[in-house]
């Protein structure tokens, strides 16, 4: 029932002296407190404070990240990309603005890296005017540096932004060229290799819709995924929107990456399967570091408190 795996703390970064030292200090301190608690001694609140401070600042200073176990809802997306035959076509929708980017950009990055590493082909689309700039930035930052052999038009193509909201989706689900006669650089789609044999969205193999507003992932599910013969859709959304997407899982969406935790889980899954990405920044995992450590420390303190409480026999005193 419980998938018990050891915490693979150093799985990604190799052996890192500051990380080891800070974790040893925190871990050693906790051990000392455990021994004290077993002797029924209470811990001074200042010691609690010191541990919280250390648990939050150490991951910030040394970029300590923890392994996240991907939940089935995230794993669904990962495994789909993993198991599709090579050269599959994946549409990546950038439907967000800079304000939402800290939460959802990590997801887009992770999925792009994963798909390119699997030698899939990518089609970028944005329904948000603000999304195109983010899309261009992402492409120019990731692809030339990490996948220098990938070529625009053969391995990936950016269609850019098109106004019209869900109306655009409704057209491209039956005819892409009607809405996008050319790509973002003005090359006619008929001249682009990726679009050989692609008439509509029904001919692509998967859609990864990243966003959080309207139009966004939900519209991709309703207008493209649910259309007869529509491709499978996976979504990456901000944490506040995630609950609204759950009802569509698992029938209408492949999987959901919700908030920074979803991003961290995907990144973690990616790092396990593709050690080549160990050098890349993993903002999702990085932002989860202080959270995980602090939660573990607080839980440990609750347990210590109860140990001291029962061993000290104070539970027999009548109170409350």
């Amino acid at each position, binding site marked *: 029932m419980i998938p018990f795996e050891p915490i693979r703390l150093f799985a990604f970064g190799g052996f890192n002296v500051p990380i080891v030292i800070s974790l040893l200090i925190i871990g050693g301190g906790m051990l000392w407190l455990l021994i004290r608690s077993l002797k029924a001694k209470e811990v001074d609140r200042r010691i609690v404070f010191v541990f919280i401070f250390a648990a939050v600042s150490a991951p910030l200073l040394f970029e300590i990240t923890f392994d996240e176990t991907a939940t089935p809802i995230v794993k669904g997306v990962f495994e789909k990309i993993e198991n599709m035959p090579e050269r599959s076509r994946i549409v990546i929708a950038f439907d967000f603005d800079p304000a939402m980017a800290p939460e959802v950009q990590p997801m887009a990055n992770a999925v792009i890296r994963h798909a390119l590493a699997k030698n899939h082909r990518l089609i970028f689309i944005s329904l948000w005017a603000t999304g195109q700039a983010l899309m261009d930035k992402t492409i120019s930052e990731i692809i030339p540096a990490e996948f220098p052999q990938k070529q625009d038009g053969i391995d990936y193509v950016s269609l850019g932004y098109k*106004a*019209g909201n869900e*109306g655009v989706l409704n*057209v491209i689900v039956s005819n892409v060229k009607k809405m996008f*006669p050319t790509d973002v650089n003005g090359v006619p789609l008929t001249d682009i290799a990726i679009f050989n044999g692609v008439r509509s969205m029904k001919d692509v193999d998967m859609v990864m819709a990243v966003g959080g507003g309207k139009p966004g992932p939900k519209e991709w599910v309703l207008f493209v995924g649910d259309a007869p013969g529509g491709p499978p859709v996976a979504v990456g959304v901000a944490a506040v929107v995630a609950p609204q997407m759950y009802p569509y899982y698992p029938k209408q969406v492949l999987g959901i990456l919700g908030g920074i935790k979803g991003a961290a889980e995907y990144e973690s899954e990616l790092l396990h399967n593709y050690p080549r990405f160990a050098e890349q920044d993993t903002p999702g995992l990085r932002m989860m570091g202080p959270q995980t450590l602090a939660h573990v420390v607080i839980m440990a303190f609750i347990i210590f408190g109860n140990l001291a409480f029962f061993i000290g026999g104070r539970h027999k005193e009548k109170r409350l």
Partner: protein
Amino acid sequence: MTYMLRIMLLLVLLAGVSGLAQDQPVADTAAADTATVDPPAPVTNLTGQDRDNDHGHAIELSWTPSVDDLENPAGDRSVMRYRVMMWRPAFAFRVDTLRQMYEMVRNSYKPIRVYKPLVDSALSMVEQGVTSVAQLPFKVQLPADVDMTDVPQDLLRQTLEDTLETMVGQVEVSKDSVKTFRSTFLDSVDALTAAYATYPNNGRWDSIGAEPPGSGNFRHAGSKDEFSPDFLPDHTDLYYRVDAVTIDPDVYAESEIVGPIQSSGQWYNTGRTVVLVSVIIFTIFTILFVQQARGGKELYVRPLAGIEAVDDAIGRATEMGKPILYVLGLGAASDIATIASFTILSRVAKRVAEYQTDLIVPTYDPIVMTVAQEVVKSSYMDAGRPDDYHEDMVYFVTQSQFAYVAAVNGVMLRQLPATNVYMGKFYAESLILAETGALAGSIQIAGTDEIAQIPFFVVACDFTLIGEELYAASAYLGGEPILLGSLKAQDYAKALFVISAIVGFVFLVLHDITGVEWFTNFKEWYRVSD
């Protein structure tokens, strides 16, 4: 004078732009080049009426969606949106222009008055011999061939004086024009009704909104404010039409025209009858039980741990010779939780006066401070110790959440109160206060109606009044039996709730078994309109 010129220019521009807009509808060129769409079927059964239960200025339209609606799998699925059109007289557009101009004139008034003193001080600096434009607080426009760092004094002074003169003139002009524009504008608003009555002459159709495919109604919610661009006059004949639009905005189908429709305000909101009934029932309950209590009937109230703790805690403080800290929270004096807290404060203050302990009440809101002073003062009088009362027991700290917390934390650690009482509205600071109090070793009693904060008080305080218990405690500690009458009314209302919920459950089961629709309609009884 330049000002009037600017206005004239603006007028010309506005006229030009609106003329252009009329002649050339902006087309989505990309779509026009590539997509050719057949015109869809129009919407049918368009009806419109005044929105009920409102203050007027709103019309509700409903229609049957086009056969070619995107959501209808049977048709072409080419309708991307419904564009709602309204007939507006040319005069209405003129009123819009007037409104914009009035806003501009009104707003231009302020910068002039802000910049004038700058020019004044620049002039006096020029007199003192400053010649560099960069050093002046006001950057004047100078001929291009002048060296900006060393301008001849005369030229600089002359330019500044000219600027000043223009500005003074503009202030006068704009002051007058604000008044003129305003009265002209208001007169024309009054004439709008007559202008709408000239339908279908002297006007054109204007888009007022759009609805996504699949929808069959639209609320034209205008504003009642004449100065708002959405202003919609009441008791005026209005005409509407709904266009079914495809992805190409030029390809659409018009519906039949509906009208004339008039909007007006109502005197009774029928959607709120259920609230009215509840108000009456609840008031009757309360008055009934208060009368019973007044008649001397004993009303049982179950013991609450927090209430008993208050008295014990005061005794403890007296024994230790330490003060009691009473925190009223961040609520305003009119918040119900704060008012309940005042009643508890009066009881605490009376006890404190009797035991001759010290009381500290730092407050967050100045009006709360005023009331709390009054409450504490009269409690001391009731206790027969008016001389022990001094104004500084209750004092104002600041109206900033965390600054207040910082100060109360300081009080807790420096004056080490034996007991801290937190009653009222609390937000994120609840845990900071309660933990600091625990650190200082005080007994802590809390009560709040902020649901999100109750967990923190429950965890960190010795006694917590959960939600409604705060009000019960207030009624209980208020010391007057008639206050308890309302507790009884509250319990009856709760019983009513339990009964309604069980009846609802039975009805839903009956609906599942019998399939009779009526059994689910009862939900509508509890619907309150906005």
